[in-house]
């Protein structure tokens, strides 16, 4: 792209999502789709994020709430099992943490530079409810 001249673009500042035909995209996992270099899937916007979510798998009940509520489709779920977060597209909005129903939460927000292993090692304990 770096040396593309004005005469090498398709007209209209129009960008294609896929190389060739879309085909059976509903039946194809994201990582197996032929996204173009210009597709927003190919671009990382990780640097838009100030805080990041960290996922503690041990407490997750695979309710899929975070997957449904994420406005950027950045929760990666396979066979109805939550397996992680797409950190190239997560904007750090915190909605997944807000909707997580487990106790303790399986997702928590941390500063972008926080160390994942260290935070998982000191994950909060289950809160006991007072009657």
């Amino acid at each position, binding site marked *: 792209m770096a040396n593309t*001249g*004005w005469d090498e*673009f*398709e*007209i*209209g500042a129009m960008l*294609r999502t896929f190389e060739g*035909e*879309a085909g059976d995209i509903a039946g194809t996992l994201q990582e197996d789709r032929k996204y173009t270099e210009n597709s*927003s899937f190919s671009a990382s916007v990780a640097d838009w994020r100030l805080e990041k979510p960290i996922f503690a798998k041990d407490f997750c009940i695979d309710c899929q709430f975070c997957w449904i509520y994420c406005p950027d489709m950045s929760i990666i779920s396979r066979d109805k099992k939550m397996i992680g977060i797409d950190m190239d597209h997560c904007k750090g909005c915190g909605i997944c943490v807000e909707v997580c129903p487990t106790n303790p939460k399986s997702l928590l927000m941390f500063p972008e530079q926080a160390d994942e292993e260290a935070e998982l090692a000191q994950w909060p304990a289950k809160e006991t409810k007072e009657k």
Partner: protein
Amino acid sequence: MAFDKMELRDIEVWDGNFAAAQALRQCQIDVVAAYPITPSTPIVEGYAKFLADNYVEGEFVMVESEHAAMSGCIGAAAAGGRVATATSSQGFALMVETLYQASGMRLPIVLNVVNRALAAPLNVNGDHSDMYLGRDSGWIQFDSYSPQEAYDLNFIAFKVAEDHDVRLPAMVHQDGFMTSHTAQGVKTMTDDVAYSFVGDFKPMNDMLDFEHPVTHGVQTEEDWHFEHKARQHNDMMTKVMPKIQTAFDDFEALTGRKYNIVERYDMDDADVTVVCMGTSVETAREVATEMRAKGIKAGVIGIRVIRPFPFFEIAEALKGVKAIAALDRSAPGGAPGMLFNELAGCLFNQAERPLLSGYVYGLGGRDLTKKHLVDLYTELQTNVDAGKVTTQLQQFIGVRGPKLAFL
């Protein structure tokens, strides 16, 4: 869904608005998103009635402003339909922001602009202020001088704009009231002949092509914006004029009606020439003939294609002319008029430079009378005889009060 065809007489008595509405019907526009404004209202009203009466298969989208009207047209065009609308004056001004979107996204929308003055003071009559406002927007601009031309140029506009080598939106201008509301004989085409000229709409990168998903309306910053604008300007400068000429030729072959990028009248041996647009061209032609009877070799240049500006065609047409008047029907706001500047630009490097003077006239629908033009041609002949421009370079004509002249 089938639609009915309309039986037309060979010559119908139509005003410019109805002629344009009939052209939209015959082109079978898929979507018209419109917010009507005087004096262009009957164009979209006409399309809506044709649609309601089953003479066209399409959608009429009623919106809340002209900005929304053009936005709706942009969406429909990006989706992959044949799209048109109409506006005037303040409505055109409100559309301006979206005009640049349409041209930058390379969407072949046709906009009928019924030229009207811009407020303040509020005025519904014809001048070219709105037409001039659109001249940097990246749209092709055709100018008609009569209802017949408003009808014909709509077909030509679709033909050129939708060409896949062009893919730029086009405006068809006509003078408010003088053309839009003045009924004249209009030679028609049958529905089948008219549609065969524009042909079926051929989509390109349309959003409804689900096998090839596309993103329209992307953002580019200092990294790529310049390249896209350069491509757009290149295509406007190199690809459009030949396509217009081909469309004019094809249209002449079909109907016998001949259009030219620059319309010459009595130019073969003209010493003095008026260059103007809109209905003034027809008045100037009549006066030029009368001046010839008085021994003044008068000619008229009418600009048919305003954008892309016919830089070389005009210089060629003006070869041998000794004195030229550029008539601008828009207040220039602190500069020479647009036509004066454009003509100066294309004549400056010529070996023989004619005398050029500018006139501002007809604002807010003020008549340009034959008397004005007689005086103007006489003044040009005085310049020829003196070998220099004997007046100031910019004069106002037809305005009450002390003579206004500048530069």
